């Protein structure tokens, strides 16, 4: 993917090269068309925040280029560097970074006031944004008095009110507790859809990346190690990190009375209380593969075919077919012992307790 990037006349096109003193060099190429959401997925310290800072204009590039809607923002080679305040890049920062000395509405109108919009008009627009996201009543509060979810919505409104040409979201859900996160992911997806420009979500959480993004770029140690649709990444992870973090099987279904029902299959789950649309996650290592029908404790067993085998390092990934395509992970030794090849018929079993379920 590096080099020979396609230049879109609209959207973001960038090659970001930034060296930090401590032997770390970021070298990342990105291209995001209008209306598309790209997730930058990677572990802490991979350089994700450096990407945000470079695109937002808070950190100059050492090499490469940044072009947004055909406008050159940063090219060290020709000494072009547009400062952050003239870039029209909206940023929702990690932990939101709302101004603590301003009220909620003052935070939201800040961008308009900075661009010389008259006070009254800025205030009216900010109030209408707050009403739209259901926070009109909290306009006079200080950010410290908001819940994490409310703060996130204020941060999104503050970034979008200036009608930026690109929206960057840096770990938009990391500051929230688990329950709020699920609700807010939905709201956030709606906000992203309403914003027509290119969007980028920076995250270390694969679920977030899968649900919000059209395309995922995996970043490790300052370089992109894989680019693909959420399904590509999930089914064909290219590095152990992706396999570990992003390689989980995600199944959408309806839950009731300890069962998750998909179009083709029913899964027993441990949680008997949950009901309604859910997202069930099954780690590939939790999937047990046998040549014969197992008779142990696992509640979920079915017969299927191995349609693809991929080796990487000391692990092997098996992709199985109907009725519920899943990815399982075993050792090369196990693969030999079981004499599995592509096309082999196998039995899959999964313990109900190995399936984690959350409301979708």
């Amino acid at each position, binding site marked *: 993917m590096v080099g020979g990037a396609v230049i879109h006349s609209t959207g973001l096109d960038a090659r970001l090269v930034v060296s930090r003193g401590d032997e770390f060099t970021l070298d990342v190429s990105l291209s995001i068309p209008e209306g598309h959401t790209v997730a930058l997925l990677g572990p802490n310290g991979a350089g994700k925040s450096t990407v945000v800072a470079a695109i937002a204009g808070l950190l100059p590039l050492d090499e490469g280029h940044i072009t947004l809607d055909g406008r050159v923002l940063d090219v060290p080679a020709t000494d072009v560097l547009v400062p952050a305040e003239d870039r029209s890049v909206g940023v929702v920062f990690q932990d939101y970074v709302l101004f603590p*000395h301003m009220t909620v509405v003052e935070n939201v109108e800040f961008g308009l006031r900075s661009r010389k919009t008259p006070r009254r008009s800025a205030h009216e627009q900010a109030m209408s944004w707050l009403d739209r996201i259901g926070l009109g009543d909290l306009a006079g509060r200080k950010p410290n008095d908001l819940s994490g979810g409310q703060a996130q919505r204020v941060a999104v409104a503050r970034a979008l009110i200036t009608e930026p040409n690109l929206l960057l979201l840096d770990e938009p859900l990391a500051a929230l507790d688990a329950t709020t996160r699920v609700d807010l992911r939905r709201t956030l997806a709606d906000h992203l859809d309403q914003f027509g420009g290119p969007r980028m979500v920076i995250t270390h959480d694969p679920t977030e990346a899968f649900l919000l993004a059209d395309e995922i770029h995996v970043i490790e140690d300052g370089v992109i190690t894989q680019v693909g649709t959420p399904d590509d990444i999930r089914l064909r992870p290219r590095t152990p990190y992706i396999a570990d973090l992003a390689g989980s099987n995600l199944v959408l279904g309806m839950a009731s009375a300890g069962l998750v029902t998909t179009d083709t299959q029913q899964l027993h789950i441990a949680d008997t209380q949950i009901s309604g649309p859910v997202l069930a996650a099954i780690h590939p290592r939790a999937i047990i593969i046998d040549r014969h029908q197992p008779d142990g404790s696992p509640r979920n067993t079915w017969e299927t075919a191995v349609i693809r085998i991929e080796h990487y390092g000391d692990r092997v990934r098996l992709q199985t077919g109907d009725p519920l395509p899943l990815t399982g992970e075993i050792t090369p030794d196990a693969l030999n012992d079981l004499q599995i090849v592509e096309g082999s018929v196998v039995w899959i079993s999964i313990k109900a307790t190995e399936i984690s379920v959350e409301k979708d």
Partner: protein
Amino acid sequence: MTKRATSSDRRTRRPPVVLVILAVLGLSVFVIPLLGLLARTPWSDLPTLLTSDVVLDALRVSVIASLGATAISAILGIPLAWVLARVEFPGRAIVRGLVVLPLVLPPVVGGAALLFALGRRGLIGEPLNEMTGLVFPFSIWGVVIAATFVAMPFLVITVEGGLRNLDPRYEGAAATLGAGRWTVLWRVTLPMIGSSLAAGLALTWARALGEFGATITFAGNLQGRTQTLPLAVFVAMESDRGAAVALSLIMVVISLTVLIVLRHRWWGAL
């Protein structure tokens, strides 16, 4: 005395006796001089004393000089603090040392140094005098400069500390929202270091108000022109104890008022 501690004893353990005695002695170091001052106050003569020419002149000079020094310290000291906090340059440690030097330098030495630099025959004073006719020593300007010299370090170090503690992402966020450097400074940086700034200004002003050594060395002791409240107290101690007490009381009242008004911001920032 029983050996068993009652439940209330357990909750509020009595502090060690020696520590309490030393603490009370420590407090008395501050309180006894104040009591002495109040005991010697000629309360019936006070209205006359407070409106005497010497007192009013000194009060006027002190107010102008201390506020002037605080204003100059703010205008020059905030940028200096910003540069020290945000700009990396070789010799930054030396610059910081120079800024703090007046805090430890005896003020008389500072006054002498100012005289050699800005006096009528001084390094800069002489050419400046020839070009513009300005004379700093023995003028209110001299009082302001002497007070600025000793007081500005308080502002610089307090504001620099505030800037260092401010998460730079706030300024970054403001920039991405379209705010230019001045807007960021006025609407984000300065308000967010507000308590450091208030504490710095209060400390600077208090130090300028109490300034003695550099002032008398550099600006002299001319009633109505360069004689500040502390200088007037010093002179009055020789001639008119009543006036000295009255002048001292004014300074105590001013200091206490500032402490009370700013107590929250002050303790918050230091």
